[in-house]
């Protein structure tokens, strides 16, 4: 009888531990946020024209290499595009019209506003990949969660 009681007690304790562990894991996964890009390490650091050329040469290969990775891109700012809630920084290959565009993360939005056309900057962000735009007839490569690389 005592053995049965002890077994039941052990099963109850084990069940409680399992339930608490599962809830903790679920809460952790669901409340997880992306790491601040400034604290992330770049997988690649590349000149903007070299990046554009890689995508123009073979965008499916370049997408496999760069998409969803933290990349630092170095180049000249050719445009600052502001809308209601956004300020995007653009680096374009002026001969082909192909470009890389960077959408800044919330906590670094102010940096984008201080950048000027013609500035040479290094921007770190999560590469979303690139595609050929039928509208612009040029390759476009987009980045999200960006920050100035210091």
């Amino acid at each position: 009888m005592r053995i049965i009681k002890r077994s039941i007690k052990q099963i109850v304790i084990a069940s409680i531990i399992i339930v608490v562990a599962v809830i903790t894991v679920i809460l952790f996964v669901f409340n997880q946020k992306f790491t601040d890009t400034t604290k992330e390490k770049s997988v690649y650091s590349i000149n903007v024209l070299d990046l554009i050329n890689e995508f123009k040469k073979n965008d499916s290969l370049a997408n496999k290499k760069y998409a969803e990775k933290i990349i630092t891109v170095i180049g000249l700012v050719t445009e600052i595009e502001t809308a209601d809630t956004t300020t995007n920084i653009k680096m374009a290959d002026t001969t082909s019209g192909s470009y890389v565009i960077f959408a800044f993360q919330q906590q670094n939005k102010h940096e984008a506003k201080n950048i000027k056309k013609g500035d040479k900057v290094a921007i770190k962000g999560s590469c979303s990949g690139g595609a050929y735009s039928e509208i612009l007839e040029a390759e476009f490569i987009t980045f999200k969660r960006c920050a100035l690389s210091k």
Partner: protein
Amino acid sequence: MKKTILILALALVSSTIFAQKKTTTSGTINFDATTTLDPLPKAENKTVVAALDTKNGAIAFEAIMKSFSFANPMMQEHFNSSKWIDSDKFPTSTFKGTITNFSAINLKKDGTYPADVTGDLTIHGITKSVTTKGSVTVNGKVIAATADFTIKVADYGITGQAIEAGKVTKEPKIIVAIEFK
């Protein structure tokens, strides 16, 4: 002399054609598939390419699917995975359509005008016709076009346990906001 006139005429025609098409590379699309069970499936894409023909109201956009930024890493991974959008196979979504009541919109006069938009929306490699109401706001040289509408994910071949379990809505809301300068 004739040659000069011809060149000038050609230059004028080409500049007129060029001026008809306004483009932007910083359009915004918000995607909201949240339910009472799950507030996580929502994202924003701030780098949408878009064009508006100011002569006939033709409107188009292109969005890279991996540009949709979620707050939650797991949700973003699910969204792009082969079970959902399959962004590796179908990297972009596009819209090609027209503002059907474009003649009622005066681009030379500031104001907000209702806009009836109809066209083909391609997501997940599947194209469906979409008709929605939106608005066009003219403010000097800036033309802002907005529209919000819902789509049925099943129409675009997107199904899954999360949808059946009510964690992701079957009809997410799409909000498009594009500013042409």
